[in-house]
């Protein structure tokens, strides 16, 4: 049985890159009414140990503040190559950010987590405001945030 699973795992791992297909995912992040300036958010993927894997979206236009998205900043090394073309406006208190993008199929159900770091000027920084495993099962399930995020949900298409 173990051998079978191992073989299955191995063949899947080998086969996946060959069949790398993109999957459309929508990430919806609703902020609470924290009542401060616009929030900076980093949506990114980590492995199940929290080790940075890649950037999904950065809300907030001034890169000099990106260091306050702390876990993401440490993981990405604040390297522009990690977030180029993946940035936009910050998100005001109480509003909802919807990001729809194409992700490799191989990232889903593979032990990756979606994380959201948040920061607001003159207020505290939240590393891992949201942590949600990226799985087929988790699609459509709402998760609460610990900081400025009221609720977070992603849907796989």
């Amino acid at each position: 049985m173990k051998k079978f699973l191992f073989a299955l795992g191995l063949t899947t791992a080998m086969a996946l890159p060959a069949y790398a297909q993109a999957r459309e995912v929508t990430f919806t992040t609703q902020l609470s009414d924290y009542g401060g300036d616009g929030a900076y958010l980093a949506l990114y993927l980590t492995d199940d140990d929290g080790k940075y894997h890649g950037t999904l979206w950065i809300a907030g236009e001034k890169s000099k503040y990106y260091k306050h998205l702390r876990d993401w900043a440490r993981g990405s090394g604040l390297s522009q190559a990690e977030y180029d073309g993946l940035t936009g406006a910050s998100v005001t208190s109480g509003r909802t950010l919807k990001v729809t993008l194409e992700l490799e199929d191989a990232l889903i159900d593979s032990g990756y987590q979606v994380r959201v770091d948040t920061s607001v000027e003159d207020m505290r920084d939240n590393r891992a405001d949201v942590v949600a495993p990226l799985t087929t099962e988790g699609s459509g399930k709402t998760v609460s945030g610990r900081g400025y995020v009221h609720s977070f949900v992603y849907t796989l298409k």
Partner: protein
Amino acid sequence: MNIKPIVISLSLLLVGGSAFADDDCDDPVAGWQPRENLRKQLEAEGWTVFRIKVDDGCYEVKGRDPNGDRVEAEYSPATFELMEIEREDDDDDDDDHRGKSRNDSEPTNAERVPRKGIVKGRPSVTVE
């Protein structure tokens, strides 16, 4: 079930606050000098100081350095040691006419710079 990675990541999360705060200042408040002293010191060096505020335990100074460049600098509040300094020429509040850094995040430029990442193409984003 191997819970070691979970325990490690949870404990990292807990100690993270201080352990990884690399460019924060952690001088005890009792040792802080008044921010007016910093203002005087900088003005004596030829600075124009617009504002000093406390950020991450540092004094954060906005102003013009002796070269006339707009800068944002962070100083240790006890020793006035310079922790970090940034030129503000990418600040689109006051020099929009350059508009360079702002354009870097425009969709049209997404394909221009090769990005190493997990996202294919340009995401569509709305704020409601």
